[in-house]
């Protein structure tokens, strides 16, 4: 692995930390939204299940969109993310 350039670790570290929080937020927001709608409509557990599905879809869909450019930029090409610690 090539020697990291000056400050070369900052961008990948920051990016991955940001992506992690994005996953968590999607799932938590989906669940909270579901709980709120359930308490509003009394249709428990319909909306919490829908919320979980929506949260996971957003997390995975958005996550892939965030990580694809990352893997191309920092992942060392064909080796995917194996070189992510550049």
């Amino acid at each position, binding site marked *: 692995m090539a020697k990291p*350039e*000056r*400050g*070369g670790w*900052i*961008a990948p*570290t*920051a*990016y991955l*930390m*940001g992506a992690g*929080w*994005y996953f*968590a*937020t*999607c799932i938590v*927001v989906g669940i909270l939204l579901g709980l709120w709608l359930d308490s509003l409509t009394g249709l428990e557990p319909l909306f919490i299940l829908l919320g979980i599905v*929506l949260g996971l*879809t*957003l997390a995975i*869909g*958005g996550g892939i*969109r*965030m990580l*694809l*450019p*990352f893997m*191309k*930029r*920092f992942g*060392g090409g064909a080796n995917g993310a194996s070189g992510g610690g*550049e």
Partner: protein
Amino acid sequence: MSRFRIIIIAVAALAWIVVGLLVARGPQPEIIVPAEVITKVGFLNISNTMISAWAAMIILAVGAFLATRTMKLIPSGAQNFVESVIEFLMSQLEDIAGSKNARRFFPVIATFFIFILLANWMGLLPFFNAIGKTEDIGYHLFHEIEEHHAEHKPFDEEIAHASGWLVDDTGIGLVRPNAGDAHFSLGASPETPVSPEQALDKYVVFLAQTFVDFDPEDHGAVDDGHGGFEVTAEMLTAAIAALNADPDAPKLLDGDHDHGVASAALGDELIVGGIDFPGQKLALIIPLFRSVYSDVNNTLALALISFVMVEFWGFRTLGFSYLGKFFNFSGLIPFFVGILELLSEFIRIISFAFRLFGNIFAGEVLILMLTFLLPFLIVDIIYGLELFVGFIQAAVFALLTLVFAVMAVEHHDEEHEGHEGEAGHDNMESQGTPGQ
């Protein structure tokens, strides 16, 4: 490393901790999530995090002015430092966004980074969370009891903000090491409400316990089954006598039926109109300065600015075709993907706001708790960690705004190609310098 050296280091570390516990231990922290309001200007609450934010702004503005006042072709001193920071940030931006976009996004992204970094690091200064105005919890508790009495409303839950430290200060105070602390508990719940008169009795006994080492068990305290005890007339009389015996202890001021709370145990024999604290007070120090981003309002404001800027750049570059990313009617799957994309835009605001808030607030709580539990050695290590977290969080915020901005200004067609595996998609790569 020789065994002797290890022993020396271990003893020194232990001594450091013991010295810390003896001379620098903070009082038990009162963790308050919302930023504390220091003063009010009209309808506007001025909170301690706002004051810190203004301080950071002033430092940046004055610093930038002084560093660039007499600019030279060959920089030195402050100008040199500022230029190297700007160059470093510019090179990072160019690496990711390409030179054209980097110059365009630089003012906003660099402001985010520098301001968040300064705000986070300022939060680690020793006078943050240490100097503040004294809020009299002692008076506050009596006032609560008085209000409930006036409204004939029993307590069906514990009084909020019922903990404080024993401090001498009034007005502006300093959180003193080794200050005693006390927490007043009514033992009230919806099932076991406590009348204002009973609350008064409990409060008087609590004051005697806190200020003159009065022990209710010496006066027949019997557990009432909710973790508290029933205050008897004898116990209350003894508690008042103990308070009166010490000139520095709190004193009960006489009241009457119109202005005062009568005791439950002593009836009309004891009507309290107020409490006077001639010596130490039961109070909290509300800090004048608190880390800017330990307040979710500030992180949310920043997240909204980031969101608005990204959308602005998107519209400015692509015009109304930017909306095509979110509303794509060319098929069911593109439509669904567009809606997900739209939702993601809004989720980002929450994600941005809570990421920064969570990290900084958690760090602040950690430092306060460790200053109380194990001052000096462990706190020093955590300070180092927080310096790193402050830097990384500033970088995360700036970098993610940059990446979302790059994604927003890329043409939808390019993006589509990218999804099919073409290298041209990735603006982070295609427009950037080959920095790998």
